[in-house]
């Protein structure tokens, strides 16, 4: 094997320019794929963390039918206290859950006593909400001096609404809402925080204390619109979702239909489609890399077999077995792929490292000042390197087979 490697390596060096060009082509493909994996991955993870960490949570549990009516924030599809307790019991038992937060969500009117506008409100228990969506603290651009603390009688308003009504922290206002019985109630609240807008549903919601929401809607005892869940490790979202959905599936109504519905963030936020598009483009980049490697290797190896036909004939005449000739050319292809992959990985990883240090500025929807920190995993690097090598072997198989099947007499006659 060592001698085959040595001959293969020397043959690659024999046609330096061709080898360099083919390796460069492969390297460009590898660099492109690595950069896309790194930047696309960073974009996805940053956006997903922004969405799940600052407003949605990773998983949400609702009363069945609530999500279908999400736009109207229905108050007749709330989780009753025993139902909420049942869910909380399962959440406490399910492994992998870091935190959860009960929310009362409703629509109403907000007035600063001069102007009035419609508003969507989340009634939350601040400590639990911040544990479930810690990114809310980062969205608080003008908040209380003593940290992200939301007390009864206070409200955090979304920036667009605050700017529109010219409201600032310290101002007083009132929320008016209709409860499930049809009666209209109001509550006076002091603005203590302005929230930066976020992309997607819930990105322009106001936050008040859970107790204020329950009082405003005359809920005694309080009902719950949704329970948002944060898992300890993002990679476990689907496993935790499956476990939770399975545990709650047994709860059925009198018609035998499930009482609860459990969704991951992907089912609730349109960015999941963008994430899928990023994955699709990644696959497309992968196909381009496959084509680039195959074209480069097949081209070089076909040329090599053609130009070295007499040499192959000589080797065959000297008694070299067809399998050894096949091995020699496959090894050449493999080395060519390894050379291109190594060059591409070095250049690509250097570029990714530099971008990670510098940061890549980006705007998406309401998130106008995203800083991406591109990174690739060892697994991704191994997959790219392995793929290139496998493709190099695949690309060299046909020319190598042809070389091994050459008739020695014809090959020796080749000019």
């Amino acid at each position: 094997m060592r001698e085959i490697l040595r001959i293969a390596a020397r043959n690659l060096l024999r046609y330096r320019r061709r080898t360099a060009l083919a390796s460069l082509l492969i390297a460009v493909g590898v660099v492109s794929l690595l950069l896309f994996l790194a930047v696309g991955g960073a974009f996805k993870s940053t956006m997903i963390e922004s969405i799940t960490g600052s407003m949605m949570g990773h998983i949400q549990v609702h009363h069945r039918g609530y999500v279908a009516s999400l736009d109207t924030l229905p108050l007749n599809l709330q989780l009753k206290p025993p139902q909420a307790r049942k869910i909380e019991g399962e959440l406490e038992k399910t492994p992998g859950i870091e935190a959860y937060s009960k929310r009362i969500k409703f629509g109403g009117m907000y007035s600063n006593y001069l102007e009035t506008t419609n508003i969507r409100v989340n009634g939350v228990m601040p400590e639990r909400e911040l544990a479930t969506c810690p990114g809310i603290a980062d969205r608080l651009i003008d908040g209380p001096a003593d940290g992200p603390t939301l007390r009864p009688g206070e409200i955090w308003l979304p920036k667009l609404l605050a700017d529109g009504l010219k409201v600032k922290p310290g101002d007083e206002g009132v929320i008016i809402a209709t409860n499930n019985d049809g009666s209209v109630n109001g509550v006076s609240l002091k603005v203590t925080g302005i929230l930066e807008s976020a992309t997607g549903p819930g990105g322009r919601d106001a936050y008040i204390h859970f107790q204020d929401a329950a009082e405003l809607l005359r809920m005694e005892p309080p009902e719950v619109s949704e329970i948002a869940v944060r898992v300890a490790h993002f990679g476990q979202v689907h496993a935790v979702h499956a476990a939770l959905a399975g545990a709650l599936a047994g709860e059925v109504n009198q018609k035998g239909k499930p009482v609860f519905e459990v969704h991951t963030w992907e089912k609730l936020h349109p960015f999941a489609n963008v994430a899928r598009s990023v994955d699709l483009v990644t696959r497309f980049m992968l196909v381009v890399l496959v084509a680039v490697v195959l074209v480069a290797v097949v081209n070089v190896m076909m040329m090599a077999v053609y130009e070295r036909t007499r040499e192959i004939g000589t080797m065959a005449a000297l008694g070299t077995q067809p399998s050894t000739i096949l091995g020699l050319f496959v090894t050449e292809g493999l080395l060519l792929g390894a050379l291109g992959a190594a060059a591409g990985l070095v250049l690509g990883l250097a570029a990714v490292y530099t971008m990670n240090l510098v940061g890549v500025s980006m705007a998406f929807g309401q998130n106008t000042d995203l800083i991406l920190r591109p990174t690739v995993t060892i697994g991704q690097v191994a997959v790219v390197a392995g793929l290139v090598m496998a493709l190099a072997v695949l690309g060299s198989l046909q020319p190598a087979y042809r070389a091994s099947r050459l008739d020695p007499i014809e090959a020796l006659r080749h000019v």
Partner: protein
Amino acid sequence: MSLTSAENITKTYTMGEVQVPAIRGVSFQLQAGSFVSFVGPSGSGKTTLLNMLGCLDHPDSGRLTVLDTEVAGLSRRAAAAFRGRHLGFIFQDFNLVPVLTAYENVEYPLLVVQRRPEAERRQRVMELLEAVGMAEHRDKRPGQLSGGQKQRVAVARALVTHPALVLADEPTANLDSVTSQAIVELMKRMRDTLGTTFVFSTHDTHLVEQIETVYHLVDGRIQDGAEGVSSDA
């Protein structure tokens, strides 16, 4: 002892729709340690005959036995193994592997084909390189050698496996007369030393003069009434 025997062998090539007979019923026997040449003009069938003796091709009819092995019955793999074990080749254009040094070219059959241990390889290769006067050029690649030097390396490569039979197709065709003379003397000396049988194809009259047994081929047949019998030149 008969090393090789041919009994009424024929070979016809098909070129498009035309049948071209290359060998038309040739019979001969080659003795071990002989120095034999097939001589004739272009198209007389010399190379075809050598290809069949070298198990690179097989006759359409007749019986060709090399070292007690029926050539026609060998598969592709078996023929390659047979060549690697028993035969040596010297080519008109030297056909050295360009990326290998003189040493590595000679070593190639022992290393890649016969997979001999390193110590044995080193000993045999150096013996042969010294015998052909190329030891001091052992680290040069073919591109750094003259035609005569390349052919010396090729002779060493053909002999390094200690083959019973060496087939040389026009070995001096690309060499000047002085170098040709030296190469022939070298091969004769190797024959005397190792007892290897050398079979040539040539139309070089100077070379023919030094061959011990000559078969004249014309239109695929052995001439001069010498068919099947060695005729000393």
